[in-house]
């Protein structure tokens, strides 16, 4: 098992959305945590397929169990920005030539993001990947994968550190609707995404344990892999 302490001033974990309000999940999603781990390990997960404008995810990537611990509840922020986009339909299509097929329109949107991320990403059941993550964190591998980020390439972590002794944290567990006392704050976190076919994207509802603990509950572990 490997525990990584992640501290970041800002982060954004976009749900699939369009329009003038760009939401973020309320915490690191399992799919984003998995992407971060592979980035640290220097494992390329992106795949370009000319049939799809979106970047796809490779098959055959390592499977691992991930648990997410909350040391501090992140703040939620939003700013109003002029965002470059492709207009829907045939609007302004003539501008595509002028922008050489880059986004050819500007529209005002409200972008949300999180602040003060202080979290644990814990992994188990894949020793090989854990070793690669350790190598990556110590800077022992030559990287050609940019720098690790949290959902938006501008949002870098301040700290990515292996910890051997956990501080008390609230752990995300799946919401079981047979439970009594389901809290008001339930987060829908993506586990696995599929940009080619949204129907194969997997997300579930999670809640945090009520009392901070140094022990990771068994039902906090979620398997992720492609």
């Amino acid at each position, binding site marked *: 098992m490997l525990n990584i302490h992640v*501290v970041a*001033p*800002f982060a954004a974990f976009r749900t699939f959305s369009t329009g003038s309000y760009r939401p973020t999940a309320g915490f690191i999603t399992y799919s984003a945590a998995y992407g971060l781990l592979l980035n*640290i390990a220097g494992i390329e997960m992106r795949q*370009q397929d*000319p*049939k799809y*404008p*979106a*970047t796809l995810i490779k098959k055959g990537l390592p499977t691992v169990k991930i648990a997410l611990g909350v040391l501090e509840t992140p*703040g939620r*922020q939003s*700013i*109003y*920005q*002029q965002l*470059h986009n*492709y207009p829907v339909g045939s609007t302004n299509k003539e501008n595509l030539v*002028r*922008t*050489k*097929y*880059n*986004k050819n329109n*500007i529209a*005002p949107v409200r972008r949300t993001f999180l*602040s003060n991320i202080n979290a644990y990403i814990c992994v188990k059941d894949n020793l090989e990947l854990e070793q690669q993550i350790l190598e*990556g*964190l*110590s*800077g*022992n591998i*030559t*990287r*050609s*994968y*940019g*720098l*690790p*980020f949290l959902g938006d*390439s*501008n*949002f*870098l*972590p*301040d*700290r*990515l550190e292996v910890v051997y002794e956990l501080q008390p944290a609230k752990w995300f567990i799946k919401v079981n609707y047979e439970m009594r006392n389901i809290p008001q704050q339930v987060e829908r976190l993506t586990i696995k995404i599929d940009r080619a076919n949204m129907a194969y994207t997997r997300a579930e509802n999670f809640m945090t344990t009520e009392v901070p603990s140094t022990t990771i509950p068994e039902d906090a572990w979620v398997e992720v892999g492609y």
Partner: protein
Amino acid sequence: MNLFATVITHTQPSSNYRGESAENRTVIQKITKGRYEYAVISPEAFKNALRDTLAILGLPCNRKRIHDEEQLAVEFQDYNDAEAYADDFFMGWMIAAGKNDRNKILEDIRKEHGEERAKRFTFKRDSILRTNLAVAIEPYRYDTIFTQSPKMLGPWSNAENSQLLHREVSYTAYQYPFALNLEDCRPHPDWTSTLLQAIGQITDVSGNHARSYFDMSPASIVMRLTRKLAAGYHTYGFKVDESEKHTFPEVIQGIKNNDLPGEEFYLGGKLVNDLDAETKKELETKNVHLYTNCQILLEHIAEQVYQYLTSPKGE
């Protein structure tokens, strides 16, 4: 090797980065930290100004802003190419094209630039340069300035009356981090060197600079050259006290306590000028690189980075 840095500007009046106007009030954008609101400037606004600065310093840039349009507008002079254009190289691009458009684009490139360029063309490229929000040091104190825009007569008249404006203003310094994975920069050591120097001279960041000049260049800077994947300290760690003294307690204390390796750190500007003699001496014994001027620090780093990038990998 990775480079992490935090820049802080001088304290000055700012109404740079505006959001949704409320009636005649021009609102600056803020985030909430603890009990207060703090003005922010987006990384996108910073990158836009940096692109202009790179062009002024003579680097080839693909994208430019067109100022005389009905709405905000940019123009590309060519299809994206990280080998030909510095802004494409550092800031990347994304073209979301379906199959037909993809074929057309590749055909266009083939016709205009030949087979080799079409082969190396990609529809997406990540930004090598990573920046983050610039956040005000001082909380927003609900300061506004009341100004008036005159009624314009003649053929250029665009309103029936003169306009009264409430402009929100924050008197503050801003701090922002930026980072580079130097292995990504290896194809263009000369451009990378210019990029670092450009950060030392950056200005005209975000929308309101045409009316009120805001100098975004560094008053102080903390840089770390390391193999680590994260900075390892709070990248918004600058503090400014009542007398406008700059400090970065976590890094300075961390180096003193041997929690952070002094030889990886470069400190510059007001931060160094404000150090007491004892701390300065202690940092020097820990091999910290100290510069009284940020632009000179950036020039020296640029030189060092150039040498690293032109040497074999891993040196």
